[in-house]
């Protein structure tokens, strides 16, 4: 049952992308190309989708369980952090270069030639290395935090500071 509705949801998503013309990289790049031949279509697509989801959330927020009895998503992270900003900038850069983001790249896979497959493979590589890049970024933070400020701090306070930074990291 879950799989049937997941398929239906994916199908609606894909059909919507096709009808909206969002599988056309020219229209997507046209929206991003503010200094070129600007194409506002994407704004209408986003407005339509966000409009439906606004009402869906009003219903969803009153429910404790989904219609199939699984827990509703909750406890969303609220922190705007560097990974969110840096990741979005990198994603945007790639989105602009090829005019493809993950949804339309999948939706157009069957009629997008070898280019579509190559994009999906490259995207998979990017997704596979992402956890390592995340670790590397947080390792950079730890070296910055730990080295200099502890030099002249008394033993007990140093221990205290250590505890706090560990608590924050968790």
């Amino acid at each position, binding site marked *: 049952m879950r799989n*049937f*509705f997941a*398929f239906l*949801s*994916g*199908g*609606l*998503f894909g059909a*919507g*992308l096709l009808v*909206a013309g969002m599988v*056309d990289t020219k229209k997507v790049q046209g929206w991003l*190309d*503010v200094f*070129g031949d600007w*194409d506002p*279509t994407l704004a*209408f*697509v*986003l407005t*339509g*989708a*966000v409009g*439906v*989801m*606004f009402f*869906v*959330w009003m219903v969803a927020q009153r429910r404790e*369980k*989904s219609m199939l009895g*699984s827990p509703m*998503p909750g406890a969303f*992270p*609220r922190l705007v952090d560097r*990974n*969110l900003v*840096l*990741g*979005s900038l*990198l*994603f*945007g*850069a*790639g*989105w*602009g270069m*090829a005019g*493809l*983001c*993950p949804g339309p790249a999948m*939706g157009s896979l069957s*009629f997008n030639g070898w280019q579509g497959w*190559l994009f999906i*493979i490259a*995207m998979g*590589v*990017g*997704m*596979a*290395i992402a956890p390592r890049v995340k670790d590397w970024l947080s390792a950079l933070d730890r070296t910055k935090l730990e080295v200099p400020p502890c030099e002249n701090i008394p033993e007990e306070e140093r221990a205290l500071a250590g505890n706090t930074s560990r608590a924050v990291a968790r």
Partner: protein
Amino acid sequence: MHQDWIWGLVGGLMIGAGAGVYLLVNGRIMGASGIIGGLIDGSGRDTVSERVAFLGGLIAVPPLLVPLYKVVDTHVTSSIWVIVAAGVLVGLGTRLANGCTSGHGVCGISRFSLRGIVATAFYLLGGGLSLVIFRHLLGVI
């Protein structure tokens, strides 16, 4: 051309309906990068079949509608290095930010999520800068 916005709106409503089904029926956020990424890095190993079913619908349904149009030209670039660089950036960026146009954009903005709104602002900025640099300054796309 002048009717594009109507079809954009209609398609947008369908995309919203897809996201609505996934949220209300399955209790999950419809984010394309998260659904794919969870399969790739193993973080979604408890929900593999649901993810595969979603992607199955996303990949299999659009070609059924293609015959309604005379031509569906995706205007996709044939430059190998542009595709590879763009793909890696999209994959890495969406997983670092934990969402893409569907997760942060469609599902995030609609619940007034600060993270969704900030992410959308920055990927639009990244996309705009990308066009300025790679199309207008370097002329490679």
